[in-house]
């Protein structure tokens, strides 16, 4: 198997910041992490191409899909902030060397969907908006197992 060709999420843990019971999803079918910059394009001076592009405002979302609707209906509070840790297994070593951990916080629940067609594969999902950490740092911290000097 070619490394990285499959997206195997071994676990996703959603933990309330400030205390509370964590929700662990072991059968996630999709963890869609999207990071966006709301680029502002500045033109002028008869230039055909932009003179300056400003990536001032950033946003990030994560949507976790799973076959089991029960997890979606758990007690996630839209008024709470959560830390989400999702582990993407290495294609060969599993959760060992090469596995990638996405640590995302603070996450605020935006959509809790139990969408799924009758008698088809279920596709309930949880969607979160990610805020900035203290000191304006990215809410998505990525570490690779076994990586280092």
């Amino acid at each position: 198997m070619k490394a990285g060709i499959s997206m195997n999420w071994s676990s996703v843990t959603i933990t309330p910041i400030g205390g509370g019971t964590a929700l662990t999803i072991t059968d996630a079918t999709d963890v869609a992490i999207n990071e966006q910059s709301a680029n502002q394009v500045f033109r002028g001076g008869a230039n055909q191409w932009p003179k300056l592009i400003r990536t001032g405002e950033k946003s990030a979302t994560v949507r976790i899909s799973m076959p089991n609707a029960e997890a979606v209906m758990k007690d996630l509070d839209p008024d709470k902030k959560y830390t989400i840790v999702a582990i993407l297994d290495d294609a060969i070593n599993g959760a060992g060397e090469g596995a990638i951990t996405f640590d995302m916080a603070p996450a605020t629940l935006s959509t809790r969907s139990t969408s799924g067609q009758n008698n088809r594969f279920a596709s309930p999902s949880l969607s979160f908006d990610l805020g900035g950490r203290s000191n304006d740092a990215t809410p998505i911290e990525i570490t690779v197992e076994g990586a280092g000097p």
Partner: protein
Amino acid sequence: MPTFLGSPAIFGVWSELQTQPRPHRTQSIAFPGVNGRIASPLGTDGGQTVARTMLYGDNIAELNEAEAVLISLAANGPNNVGMLVDDQGRSWPGVYVASATPIEDVTRLGAGYSRLWQIAFEHLV
């Protein structure tokens, strides 16, 4: 690159400006019993340039310094009359900063900080 009083400082890292000369001043004279009027030319009447500029600093202190230059020019107004060279290379003498207005909150630009300002220049000639 536009300049004002010989310096490009207040035009920051990006700018756009439009100059609009005012119409020629005239004296309009009407005559009893005659249709229409005579327009007697009195001379030019200056104009106005409106600029949007993005000031930048590697840190907040440097942005504050860049903004202080513009704020000072706006505060002094007609005490600082001089030459404005626009982005087409045209020179406009007798110009001063009539007002300078921040039009957004401080916004990150790369590793630094930026803010858009709108500047109104008054042309005396």
